[in-house]
């Protein structure tokens, strides 16, 4: 019961945030929650199932374009476009998994990286449709959900919060379910779980597809809430980011992705205030953090104090 209370309490606190945060920080929080959904998806694949992917930018971009292009080309409203985005992320993840899951470990990392790179270049190649590197600003008619304008502060925040809350609770339910334990078994000892009668390929494919649904939702949400779709989201940088969030917050913890995204955002904000050489501060902070909490923040807390943390 404790985990459920903790998670619902976090969502409740976040829901009140616009009351005590400036509009600037409330919007940033919406951004962070969208990124956290992306990282939660990454965590399902990497943190729980042990799939070290460097190709998640492809899944983020899949969701982003699957939502943004129909809105742009055929005038879809935000609701259908968002669903298309989730489906896009899941489909591409399943296709990626069918090929890449023939490999494991660092080979898997490199194969996913290369497919993502090919995806990025494909976006450039079809620039007449995708807008290429420039991308496009999503039309305002595509940013209306059930009559409310997602480009305004309150609807945007509520939409981001809803997606985040569903994503968080779903991931908590998932990792506490029998399937969640199977995922962890894959990470810990694939051979043993095979002998217990599980098909590792199917389990990993399902985990990666779930991860893709999350990434797709995040990409679609970014396109619809912040109004921009571009190929830069398919670059390697956006594959490294969710890994960084997850490792900072704690791989294999349900709240780690959110904490990591929040901290990283705060770190960059704080660093740019201190110095123009802000990358230096970010780099040093990462090194220091990992030296003192090698399992990520929540991973370390769980190890030392709160053993019940999911």
């Amino acid at each position: 019961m404790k985990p459920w209370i903790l998670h619902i309490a976090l969502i409740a606190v976040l829901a009140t945030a616009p009351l005590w945060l400036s509009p600037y920080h409330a919007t940033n929080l919406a951004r962070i929650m969208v990124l956290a959904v992306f990282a939660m998806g990454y965590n399902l694949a990497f943190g729980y199932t042990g799939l070290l992917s460097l190709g998640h930018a492809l899944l983020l971009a899949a969701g982003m374009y699957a939502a943004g292009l129909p809105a742009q080309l055929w005038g879809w409203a935000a609701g259908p476009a968002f669903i298309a985005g989730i489906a896009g992320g899941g489909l591409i993840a399943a296709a990626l998994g069918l090929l890449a899951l023939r490999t494991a470990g660092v080979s898997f990392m490199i194969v996913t990286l290369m497919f993502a790179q090919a995806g990025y270049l494909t976006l450039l190649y079809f620039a007449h449709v995708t807008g290429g590197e420039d991308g496009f600003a999503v039309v305002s008619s595509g940013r209306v959900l059930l009559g409310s304008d997602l480009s305004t502060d309150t609807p945007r925040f509520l939409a981001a919060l809803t997606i985040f809350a569903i994503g968080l609770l779903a991931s908590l339910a998932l990792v506490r379910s029998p399937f969640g334990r199977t995922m962890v078994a894959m990470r810990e000892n694939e051979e043993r779980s095979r002998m217990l009668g599980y098909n590792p390929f199917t389990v990993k494919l399902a985990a990666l597809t779930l991860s893709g649904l999350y990434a797709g939702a995040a990409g679609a949400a970014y396109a619809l809430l912040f109004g921009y779709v571009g190929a830069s989201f398919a670059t390697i940088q956006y594959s490294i980011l969710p890994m960084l969030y997850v490792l900072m917050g704690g791989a294999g913890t349900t709240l780690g992705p959110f904490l990591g995204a929040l901290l990283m955002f705060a770190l960059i904000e704080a660093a740019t205030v201190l110095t123009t050489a802000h990358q230096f501060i970010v780099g040093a902070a990462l090194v220091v953090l990992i030296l003192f909490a090698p399992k990520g923040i929540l991973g370390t807390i769980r190890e030392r104090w709160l053993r019940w943390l999911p």
Partner: protein
Amino acid sequence: MAFGPFLLLALMEGLVTAAILALAASGLSLVFGVMRVVNVAHGEFYMLGAVLAWAVTTMIPGPPAMAFLAAVLIAPLLVAALAAAADGLILKRLNYDPEATIVATIGLLYILQQAALSLYGPNANPVAAPFTWRIQLPWFGYSGYKLFVVLAAILVLLALWAFMTRTRAGLVMRATQVDRTTAQAFGINVDRVYMGTFALGAGLAALAGVLIVPVQQAQYLMGHDPLLLSFIVVIIGGLGSLRGTLIAALVIGLSDGVISMFFTPTLAKILATLLVAMVLVFRPQGLFGAKA
């Protein structure tokens, strides 16, 4: 241009890519093979090699050849020393945990990149080649220095191979790669082996950076591509196989060159990337790795 000369040019370009890649990737392969560390900052060591080469050649007066020779000697040593320090201060304390070292080397990447930007600046600065010999073929001209890069890379790789197979230090490294615990039991100082490996790997990347800089200029973001390509080469070649790394570098360099003959550049890049990915998908252990 006729097909023959075109192919010749594509192959020559492919060879140069392969030579640089083989150097950078052999460094990564060592680190990865012996220490099992995914060093995300490897490309930054390459970049530092190039930037330090610029610094050394601008500080040392005299003919370009002398200044360049000094850069070839000094830059990799400085980078190796820096890497050794990073190993002792950071990686060792993380006990070489695979996940923690990824975060740590990402941090290192940020630090090194920012240091280069703050101290060296954002511009791409040229370094004069040690000689300016140019080959003029009937169909196109070609830089003699690029051919020298290929030759130099072959020599360095031969030396590396001799070091790994013929010296005690190489033997110790290979033993540690095979089984860390047993190596320790036989009285090998694993910490020192790791530090040496990390320094050697970084030094090789830096050397690749020094060799490429007369062709491609020193710029603070230049480490990105070699990092990704080196990883690909290491995996395709099969973990810990120096021969595999070399052949994979050749395959990737040449296929990149040849495929670009037949398609528009962006499409060629897409196809070359997918081709290599498919090789891995259908031969996950790499071309020369043992079956896992």
